[in-house]
């Protein structure tokens, strides 16, 4: 006869600081060596960094000479130049307008990330928000001075290029991905040609082509705004990559899912919209977010056709003869801005993955 065994606690402590240390940092001799190496590296790097960036830094200097006298970082440079970095060449007195526009854009993006907002009225919010952004940036009505978009710059411009780049390229990329898997040879060939052609060309050359070559092909007297041309180039470029990411997701969906949908009598749009794409897109959230992050950062390439995005306005801020030599501070500042946006995207994608997890798939 079998005897009953009581439930016992595990032999070694599984929780507490000591167990945590042992499990995470000293689980094997190699890991112990790596841990100690890392600690040593941090000890070498961190103290001087903290000293430079915080302890000996100058936050309040009025002139660059005052700043240079100290041995630490000159954050006073940022205090002097942040408006140029953030808003580029936008008329100084009107810079509240791009600020509000950027806040509206960020607000709308954040709102779109909240599942509670995923309702038809979100589209209304976007229409209203975009009108507000356009009015603020261009002006010309409501007593706002007209500001040409060649003067736009800095963070609002980067946000506009990235937001529209991603928002328009995404549906376009979906269509391309579905087209590439189409059974109709003409559609399939067209999509393959487009994707391979665009992917085979660097974004820089597409931006050049859009700014230099495109006007040659347009009829006399007809011109497209430079900013719009750059925006179109970014959209066309991103769409090809999105299409390939989506295609990867589509290939991960078992044939049975298509057959299940077919057997219910769903039509093509219903099958794709309700069954295939929701699953395929869930699979590709990680590469898709990597791609979005890349698009966000790649907007900085518009500098080569003379558009003052965040990166270019930072460079311009460094050319002031009165404040030369603080490029480290400037680049740390602008990197921090990029990082905040990209890291938020990354964190959000993780949350989305967790939210959409519905047990193991079949």
């Amino acid at each position: 006869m079998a005897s009953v065994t009581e439930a016992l606690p595990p032999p070694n402590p599984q929780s507490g600081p000591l167990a945590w240390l042992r499990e995470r940092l000293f689980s094997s001799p190699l890991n112990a060596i790596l841990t100690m190496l890392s600690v040593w590296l941090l000890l070498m790097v961190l103290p001087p960094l903290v000293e430079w960036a915080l302890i000996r830094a100058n936050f309040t200097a009025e002139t660059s000479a005052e700043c240079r006298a100290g041995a630490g970082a000159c954050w006073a440079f940022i205090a002097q130049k942040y408006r140029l970095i953030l808003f580029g060449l936008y008329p100084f007195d009107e810079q509240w307008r791009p600020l509000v526009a950027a806040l509206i854009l960020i607000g709308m993006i954040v709102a779109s990330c909240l599942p509670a907002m995923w309702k038809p009225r979100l589209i209304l919010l976007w229409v209203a928000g975009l009108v507000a952004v356009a009015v603020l940036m261009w002006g010309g009505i409501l007593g706002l001075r007209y500001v040409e978009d060649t003067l736009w710059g800095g963070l609002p411009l980067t946000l506009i290029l990235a937001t529209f780049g991603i928002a328009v390229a995404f549906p376009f990329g979906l269509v391309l991905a579905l087209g590439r898997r189409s059974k109709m040879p003409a559609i399939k060939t067209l999509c393959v040609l487009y994707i391979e052609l665009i992917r085979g060309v660097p974004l820089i050359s597409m931006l050049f082509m859009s700014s230099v070559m495109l006007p040659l092909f347009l009829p006399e007297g007809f011109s497209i705004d430079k900013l719009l041309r750059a925006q179109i180039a970014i959209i066309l470029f991103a769409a090809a990559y999105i299409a390939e990411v989506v295609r990867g997701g589509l290939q991960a969906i078992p044939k049975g899912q298509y057959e299940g949908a077919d057997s219910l009598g769903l039509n093509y749009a219903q099958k794709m919209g309700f069954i295939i794409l929701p699953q395929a897109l869930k699979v590709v959230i990680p590469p898709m977010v990597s791609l979005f992050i890349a698009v966000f950062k790649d907007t900085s390439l518009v500098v080569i056709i003379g558009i003052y995005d965040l990166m270019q306005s930072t460079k311009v801020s460094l050319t002031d003869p009165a404040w030369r030599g603080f490029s480290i501070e400037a680049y740390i500042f602008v990197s921090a801005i990029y990082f905040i946006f990209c890291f938020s995207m990354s964190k959000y994608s993780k949350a989305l993955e967790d939210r959409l997890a519905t047990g193991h798939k079949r």
Partner: protein
Amino acid sequence: MAQPIIDLQGVNKWYGEFHVLRNINLTVARGERIVICGPSGSGKSTMIRCINRLEEHQKGHIIVDGTELTNDLKNIDAIRREVGMVFQHFNLFPHLTVLENLTLGPIWVLKQPKAEAEAAAMKYLERVRIPEQAKKYPGQLSGGQQQRVAIARALAGSPKLLLADEPTGNLDTQMARAVMQLLEDIHRDGATIVMVTHDPELAARAQRNVHVIDGQIVDVGEAPRLHMNVSRLSA
């Protein structure tokens, strides 16, 4: 004689060079429960998958409930509305709850109001005895439970014909018996069922057996042992 629900006339199909269905002739009457059996690769699955156009036949005629399957999408849609299907691998939609799996077809294909479709779906879940799982996702259920959901999903469109492609192929013996019992109950309620299996025990329980070997029907016969059961069921 009443119009048969399925009428296959000289159906042929090739996979590349391979002649998988060779001149298939078969009629199924309304209210019948037949089993198509045969060895693996004999074409029996392909045959029933042709009936709702998951596979395309290249020669011959397939007429389901008076509508011929052609390349006309309207006919294909009409037939799929009348035909439910149960698969070996269930093919439930893992990102939708059990209830959503059941209501998707009725709401979007049959244009039923959501509340009505949900009420009906709950009835079908009770029919397959798992109403308490309605809010769960398929991945949280056992294989037998998933196949019950799949059967309920196929029934939710109130089809005139239920196709089952190895419905017990992925289940252990006990679950397989339960699922078979369920299908027999459903048949007794008036459904026409065409089932593919290579399990001889299950085949023996059918009203009529169709043997397929090398893409040809070699034998259509009543399963003798079942005679008594059938008369008892229909009594």
